[in-house]
């Protein structure tokens, strides 16, 4: 295998890992093993992995409520992610974060945010930090189409532009923000167009094509690393399931036909076909990857299930690094 082929294989593997992780997480949520709401990256795997694989291991990343795919894409171990979703002590955030707030600092994942757009300024800061400390790290930040209308993003883009901060603004445009279609909330057809207000490049890519996403993001990352400043990458993708598991929407807000169109554009079979078609992987290898991934997720679930919940006396741990002893904790 060439290096490129290895990369493409890894791309497929991570996409598949997200797919299986998310599907299993949904099952577990329905069974009550995962508490709270669950926002999955299903059908957005090509977008997520194309973007994250463009980053170096020591590059940074921040994300949003749709938070599982991002750290997986960045290389986080799924066992501690799954344990986190179950609220276990061995979870990557010791059970304190849960589905919307995954973070794995060991792979540069500085945290997902349940507050729309509020992780974007954090990414700007990580980029500034790299500049100040004189490293060549880059920070990529994921946000949605809905988030693009939040003020925090405007402020961050302007600052990134004036200081040429090594940040990639990555918009996962899945066409909907809960029940609001992009056309209803957003004054431009392409969110990438917003970059024109800051004088840096904005590019639109097909979010179902991991290679196209990877190529555009790599260019953005390299530009950032060269000190030339930010890029806005917009990947057009689609959310097929409801906004979140555990949040049925009371009324119909989109056409089945629209969903059907996108069902045909599932990135996983398409990419598998391309890899086998181009002779990069055999059918057997594809099956083998699937088998390995399923084992990996099974093991993660076992790990999570067999882990303990955090102990009640750990409640205050991490609230402060230099702890304050509360006078009357529970009265």
């Amino acid at each position, binding site marked *: 295998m060439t290096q490129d082929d290895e990369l493409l294989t890894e791309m497929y593997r991570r996409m598949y890992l997200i797919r299986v992780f998310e599907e299993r997480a949904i099952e577990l949520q329905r069974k009550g093993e995962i*508490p*709270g*709401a669950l926002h999955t990256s299903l059908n957005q795997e090509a977008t997520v992995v194309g973007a994250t694989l463009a980053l170096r291991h020591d590059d940074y990343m921040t994300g949003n409520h749709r938070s599982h795919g991002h750290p997986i894409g960045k290389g986080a171990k799924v066992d501690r992610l799954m344990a*986190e979703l179950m*609220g*276990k002590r061995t*979870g990557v*955030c010791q*059970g*304190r*974060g*849960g*589905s*919307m*707030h995954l973070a794995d600092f060991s792979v540069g994942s500085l945290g997902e*945010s*349940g*507050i*729309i*757009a*509020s992780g974007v300024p954090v990414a700007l800061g990580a980029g500034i930090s790299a500049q100040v400390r004189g490293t060549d790290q880059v920070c990529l930040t994921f946000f949605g189409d*809905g*988030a693009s*209308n*939040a*003020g*925090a993003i405007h402020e961050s883009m302007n600052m990134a532009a004036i200081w040429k901060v090594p940040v990639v603004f990555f918009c996962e445009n899945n066409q909907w*923000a*809960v*029940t*609001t279609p992009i056309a*209803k*909330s*957003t004054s431009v057809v392409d969110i990438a167009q917003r970059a024109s207000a800051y004088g840096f490049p904005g590019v639109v890519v097909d979010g179902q094509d991991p290679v196209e996403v990877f190529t555009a993001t790599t260019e953005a990352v390299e530009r950032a690393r060269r000190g030339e400043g930010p890029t806005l990458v917009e990947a057009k993708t689609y959310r097929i399931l409801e906004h*979140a598991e*555990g*949040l*049925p*929407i*009371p*009324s119909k*807000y989109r056409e089945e036909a629209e969903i059907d169109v996108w069902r045909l554009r599932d990135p996983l079979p398409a990419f598998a076909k391309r890899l086998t078609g181009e002779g990069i992987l055999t059918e057997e290898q594809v099956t083998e990857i699937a088998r390995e991934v399923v084992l990996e997720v099974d093991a993660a679930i076992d790990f999570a299930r067999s882990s303990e*919940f*955090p102990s*009640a006396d*750990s*409640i*205050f741990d991490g*609230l402060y690094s230099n702890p304050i002893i*509360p006078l*009357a*904790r*529970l*009265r």
Partner: protein
Amino acid sequence: MATTLTETAHTSATDRKGRRLTYLRAIRDAQSEELSNDPNVVMLGEDVETGMFGTSGGLRDEFGPVRVRDTPISELGFCGAAVGMAMTGLRPIVDLTIATFTYVAFDAIVSQAAKSGYMFGAQAKVPVVYRAAMFYGGGDAAHHSDRPYATFMTVPGLKIIVPSSPYDAMGLLKSAVRDDDPVLCFEDKNLWGVRETLPDEEFFVPLGQAAIKREGSDVTIVAIAGAVRLALQAAEKLNGEGISAEVIDPRSLVPLDWPTIFESVAKTGRLVIADPASRTCSAASEIAATVTEELFGQLKHAPVRVTTPDVQIPFSPPLERTLYPDPTRIAEAARRTIR
């Protein structure tokens, strides 16, 4: 997020006869009535046209997208816009969905909504209602679990309601919409499913009027929002032990019905405050401090606060579960004032 609660068909004052309505539905119907009553009442917020949690279901179809309007995710912008709307003749109800999203809009609520009426020398009235649900206890973690009414109580110029029942939700919210001042309405998600039969005729609950939920003579328990039913459970327990607890729900935190609280404490000499918010600078602290200042000589024991400790809300249910006031802790506090 609980959703089996969601109801979308419309009930008006006239056709809710005898039906037991949920808290959520009471909020929806209050808004429906106010939209019907006054063409200047409008609703805005993210996904209000679909009516995600059930508090606006069907309203867009009835009142149209000009009056019931989906917004982009721009809380600072649309909460500020609501002030401009309110100063020019409309009476907007802004649905912020979840209480932590008020932080994004904090400047609009504080610098514009709370200050404009005063700063412009009473030229402006700002009749806006900001509604937000308090999610807590459901594994929603730190970004979706705050109960920030005390944060806003530090801001003069705002009024704050915390309905604890379908009746209060409807009655307070309708009063809030007709109030000429900015009102924050914090809705307790743990009460969404609570049902109650509401009066057939239109009704209002005035701001600043506490409800004595249970009379008693040994100890006063002031309870806020979701803690009211927990306090009633505690009172029931205490009753079995021969302790007679009076339970008071202030219903609005600004204005706060001091006379009712003072009268009760003057009678019982003992005060417990059950407040699901975190402890420091809480509504509970304010009530404790004020009652002590006013009734020191009549107090038989220090007021005791039963609150959530000063910690962010952890995701893990076993950790989260222990944090909030519950009937056991409330009853224990009441006993402590007596022993």
